[in-house]
């Protein structure tokens, strides 16, 4: 982590991972502000020029908690031809896909229509982003696969966008963010789960987003580090909501991926849910199984930022509690907390688990042969 301070040569074949890997969290960016315009009706061009985008926080530009460096990105990730980090396919190929032998790269666009207050605008931007992912990325490099982004607060429009992409091999998942207007198990989001189950794609829940709620149950914290560490608390609450509302009873084939919020918290959350459920199950009779069983069967986890205990046996025990079949390797390229594939997993892992961690689990989940 924090590779900006590490003086290191550009990756080459000699330092690369020999076996192919999947990178399940790559963030593509637009090179210019109007790069999306060709994919949007004219009406929205002038809307964006006049009013910009209004999110569930006060800033017209940039995030409420300033990042630790520009665009939260690696300092070596500026493309030589200009534009922000993550906006150049050729540079992404050179810096990430080729040297690390990425066989499958899952795109998770972040600056989309998700989290905007105007739902028509949100839907227009999301649909444009989906077209743009095909045009700029997946049609140009077959290793890359896209995520369907949707107007998350408008279930009907979101479900329509998901169904519109049914059967399109460019897309491998539906993408939501963890922080929304309500916890993710609430019924306003069920049309998304219904449509995703119907077209057979998993739903990824990426950390971040703003839904108008203070970032802690005691109000707004002061620092970026609190927001970053806090993603795991937001994600735990979102997952608890999904389980307790009965989403996995209602959509038994639904698969979900917890992205960029860690996984070390999963065992203690599952134990706490089970222990409390023993006493309070009469309040949630729609649950037919223990909370931990839904989590075990329906949830996958991306690895970055990788849990990093002092002792590797602690890491291995934690992964055993979760399941070696449930982790999906991710780098978070081009962001500053990039996990380098060759450094993430300590020695002492069986070849089968290693292969599952880096590639096998992702291929299976995302249906890539």
């Amino acid at each position, binding site marked *: 982590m924090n590779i900006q301070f590490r003086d290191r040569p550009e990756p080459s074949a000699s330092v690369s991972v020999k076996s192919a890997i999947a990178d399940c969290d790559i963030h593509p960016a637009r090179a210019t502000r109007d790069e999306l315009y060709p994919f949007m009706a004219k009406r929205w061009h002038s809307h964006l020029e006049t009013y910009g985008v209004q999110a569930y926080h006060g800033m017209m530009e940039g995030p409420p908690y300033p990042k630790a460096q520009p665009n939260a990105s690696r300092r070596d990730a500026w493309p030589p031809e200009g534009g922000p980090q993550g906006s150049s396919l050729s540079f992404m190929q050179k810096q990430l896909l080729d040297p690390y032998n990425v066989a499958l790269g899952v795109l998770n666009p972040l600056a989309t229509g998700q989290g905007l207050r105007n739902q028509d605008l949100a839907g227009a931007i999301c649909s444009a982003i989906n077209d743009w992912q095909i045009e700029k990325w997946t049609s140009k490099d077959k290793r890359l696969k896209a995520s369907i982004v949707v107007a998350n607060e408008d279930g009907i429009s979101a479900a329509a966008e998901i169904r519109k992409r049914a059967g399109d091999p460019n897309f491998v998942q539906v993408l939501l963010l963890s922080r929304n207007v309500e916890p993710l198990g609430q019924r306003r989001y069920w049309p998304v789960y219904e449509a995703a189950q119907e077209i057979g794609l998993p739903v990824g829940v990426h950390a971040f987003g703003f839904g108008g709620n203070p970032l802690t*149950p005691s109000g707004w914290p002061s620092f970026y580090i609190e927001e970053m560490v806090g993603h795991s608390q937001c994600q735990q609450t979102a997952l608890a909501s999904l389980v*307790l509302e009965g989403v996995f009873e209602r959509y038994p084939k639904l698969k979900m991926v917890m992205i960029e919020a860690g996984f070390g918290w999963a065992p203690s959350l599952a134990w706490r849910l089970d222990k409390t459920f023993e006493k309070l199950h009469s309040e949630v009779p729609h649950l037919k199984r223990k909370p931990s069983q839904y989590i075990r069967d329906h949830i996958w986890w991306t690895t970055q930022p990788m849990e990093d205990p002092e002792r590797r046996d602690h890491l291995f025990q934690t992964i055993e509690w979760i399941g070696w079949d449930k982790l999906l390797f991710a780098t978070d390229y081009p962001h500053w907390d990039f996990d380098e594939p060759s450094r993430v997993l300590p020695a002492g892992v069986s070849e089968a688990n290693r292969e599952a961690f880096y590639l096998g689990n992702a291929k299976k989940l995302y249906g890539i042969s």
Partner: protein
Amino acid sequence: MTSPIAGGVDCDLHPAVPHLTSLLPYMNDYWRDQVTTRGMTDLVSQSYPTHSPISSRPDWRPAQGKPGADLADMQKQALDRFAVRFGICNPLYGVQMVFSEDMQDAFCRALNNWLAKEWLDKDDRLRGSIVIPTQSVEKSVAEIERRAEDKRFVQVLMLVMGDMPLGKRAYWPIYAAAERLGLAVGIHAGSAYHNPPTSIGWGSYHIEDYVAQATAFQTQLTSLIVEGVFARHPNLKMVMLESGFTWLPAYLWRLHKFWRGIRMETPWVDRAPLEIVRSNIRFSLQPVDAPPDPATLNRLFDHMQSDELLLFSTDYPHWQFDGDEALPPGLSPDLVRKIMIDNPLKTYGRLEFAKEATP
């Protein structure tokens, strides 16, 4: 099971206020009049609905009234049964929920006086926590100073979900007063409901709120550490009460990693988060959110890398365990002694001292 040993300290007992009217004798004329004239209702928090299964163990539930409201029951069911030398009373009466700082202050003062007279005076094993009106730091400090003269009060009590993150500088005079007066600061599960009870909004269920308490403790610990509370107050002990603790190792791995990455944002944090937790933060034992097999639990203790973090608690009358199984199975005799006796005595400096100085 692991047998408790005699002479321990139960760090989380909940005496219940029978009704708001029970506090009337401890209010002045103005507030007595306000409560009666305005027809104010009892302050029962959603965090602990009276009839919810977790609010009372079935065999500790009285035939009538609120669980925890009767001293004789508490003596028989907790203090005598686990042969403790001290029991620390943490009243959870919903005084934090009101929105007027004046009303909150009046109710807190009444609650603290009620605790001294109706509990501490009646059993010399009992010790108290000072409940404070956190909406006003000035009034909180005044109440701490007033009640701290009675050495049987060993702790300041705050809720884990309040108006602002607990590390915010506005609260620091509270911590300065506690450190100066030799009081620990206890943070207990529960919400003032001045903010949604989760960081992503309002859920649907009581079970959801209860599960979310653990995540609230995590965000508070981050706030306390990164705002620099323990750089300023290195001798302050804070106790997470009814927080759960099995989340701690993985939480600290994550916090430590981000601290290493972006510590330039909070340069006053002069020690690694793990070291700060080891020296300044303690956790009550119950609830033990882990499977009931000793192997998993002992692995978790190994992940915590310290045997000084846990303080014995029954969480009486809440339902966290059955029978006499206040200690999870598989603990070594050495760890039992630390959890029940050594760790609490080191955390609460006033406990031994108070024995002689009780008025």
